[in-house]
């Protein structure tokens, strides 16, 4: 049976439409995907993302384990700093993508996708053989909210954490909100400025309702997974399972920028990833916009000059742009402006490759480590 977050009843009260996602019954929309999407871009939106997983990794070898698991150089993380990471297998294919937060010396928080909780946990343990490290999956004890949009910082300030006290982009800090202990992170999945708030399950219903109540004057609304997907697509943030999978390396996934070339420590898939960084790859993740009237969708085929050349990994209507956009893989390296085609219901429609993100990110650029 599908799992429910502690906020399930609140979603029903708010009139949410519920769908199953990664084994969870989650709100896909409340007022409507386009309305919710625009509200995050213009004001603020509150998301229940409690289905995501939280691991606490601590101990003398915590750093050594994380260094072995991801291409990023976790050694460079200072207290309260976070980094977006990939979790490659021995061949460089991705088991998941995740964010690692350094809470303090020898203590890290790792946030993983809902679909990755079990397999990632097994993978972490398997890699920790002989290490002096404690890996705790606390996904069932913690709930996670995301508060995203240009007004998010004002809402958090109104709740008692002033803008000066708020963590900077890709940082995290311990804080109190409404008397509850929280971890407040300046991260998200929308391309907007915003926060993620991690707290024990028992605090979450009150916190959720408090943010909606105190945030009302700033126009906050509850946002479902539908708008979460359109927001992240416009920001060209990859979705594990669509754009990333075990057959695709981070270099092929257009994530080269996130991979340091100078990390000394060995990590899973390093040989393959470094070889690809040096010699290039055969398939490339591209962003494209439809120039004909048609909507590209996950798994539709891509064509170059009428020849099959790849596949759409994510696609759909972009509310901010009022255009149809997609991400996909092609087996040729083509510059922005190049024409490609998408097969939609047995007909080819024109599209052109564009630079990503499709919508300018309001959140600041993260430091490369």
């Amino acid at each position, binding site marked *: 049976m599908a799992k429910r977050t502690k906020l399930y009843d609140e979603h029903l009260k708010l009139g949410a439409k519920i769908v199953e996602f990664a084994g969870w019954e989650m709100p896909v929309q409340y007022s409507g995907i386009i309305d919710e999407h625009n509200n995050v871009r213009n004001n603020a939106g509150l998301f229940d993302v409690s289905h995501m997983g939280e691991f606490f990794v601590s101990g003398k070898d915590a750093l050594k384990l994380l260094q072995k698991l991801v291409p990023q150089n976790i050694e460079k993380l200072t207290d309260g700093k976070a980094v977006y990471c990939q979790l490659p297998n021995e061949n460089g294919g991705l088991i998941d993508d995740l964010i690692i937060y350094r809470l303090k010396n020898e203590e890290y928080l790792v946030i993983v996708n809902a679909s990755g909780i079990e397999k990632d946990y097994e993978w972490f343990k398997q890699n920790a053989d002989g290490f002096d490290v404690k890996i705790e999956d606390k996904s069932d004890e913690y709930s996670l909210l995301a508060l995203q949009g240009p007004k998010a910082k004002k809402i958090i300030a109104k709740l008692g954490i002033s803008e000066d006290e708020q963590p900077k982009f890709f940082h995290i800090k311990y804080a109190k909100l409404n008397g509850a202990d929280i971890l407040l992170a300046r991260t998200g999945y929308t391309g907007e400025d915003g926060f993620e708030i991690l707290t024990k399950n028992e605090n979450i219903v009150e916190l959720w309702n408090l943010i909606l109540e105190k945030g009302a004057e700033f126009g906050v609304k509850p946002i479902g997974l539908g708008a979460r997907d359109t927001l992240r697509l416009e920001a060209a943030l990859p979705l594990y399972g669509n754009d990333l999978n075990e057959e695709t390396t981070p270099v092929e996934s257009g994530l080269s920028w996130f991979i340091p070339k100078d990390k000394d420590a060995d990590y899973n898939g390093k040989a393959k990833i470094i070889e690809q960084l040096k010699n290039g790859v055969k398939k490339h993740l591209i962003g494209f916009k439809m120039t004909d*009237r*048609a*909507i590209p969708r996950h798994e539709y085929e891509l064509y170059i000059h009428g020849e099959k050349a790849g596949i759409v990994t994510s696609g759909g209507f972009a509310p901010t742009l009022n255009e149809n956009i997609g991400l996909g893989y092609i087996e040729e390296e083509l510059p922005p402006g190049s024409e490609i085609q998408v097969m939609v219901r047995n007909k080819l429609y024109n599209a052109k490759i564009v630079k990503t993100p499709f919508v300018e990110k309001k959140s600041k650029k993260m430091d490369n480590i």
Partner: protein
Amino acid sequence: MMVPEGILCSKTHEYLLEENDLYTIGLTDYAVEQLGDIVFVELPEIGTEFAKGEVFATVESVKAASEIYMPVGGKIVEINEKIVESPEVLNESPYENGWLVKVESSTAQEDSGDLLDYDDYKEEL
């Protein structure tokens, strides 16, 4: 929402409304509510003939593409150009302004045997 008198509904959520031997086909209010924001509509060309149960149109919401089936066989004699330009009209007014096509049908009588009147359709949901 005003539901027109006399509509018949299919289990795949199309409605059929007869007026002076012309049949209007669209999506029920329940269908458009379930789909959410509709952002794209693809309609057939005038003159095309379809059998009952054939796909004649595609409607796409933000989330997904849905195929639309003929509730009765017939020939397309009119299409609603307005919803191609403004797909959101389907959400706002599925019966009055958001209809899809009008068809001539010589088989409507026998083809509509499995269609339900609106009250029975709502009950089946």
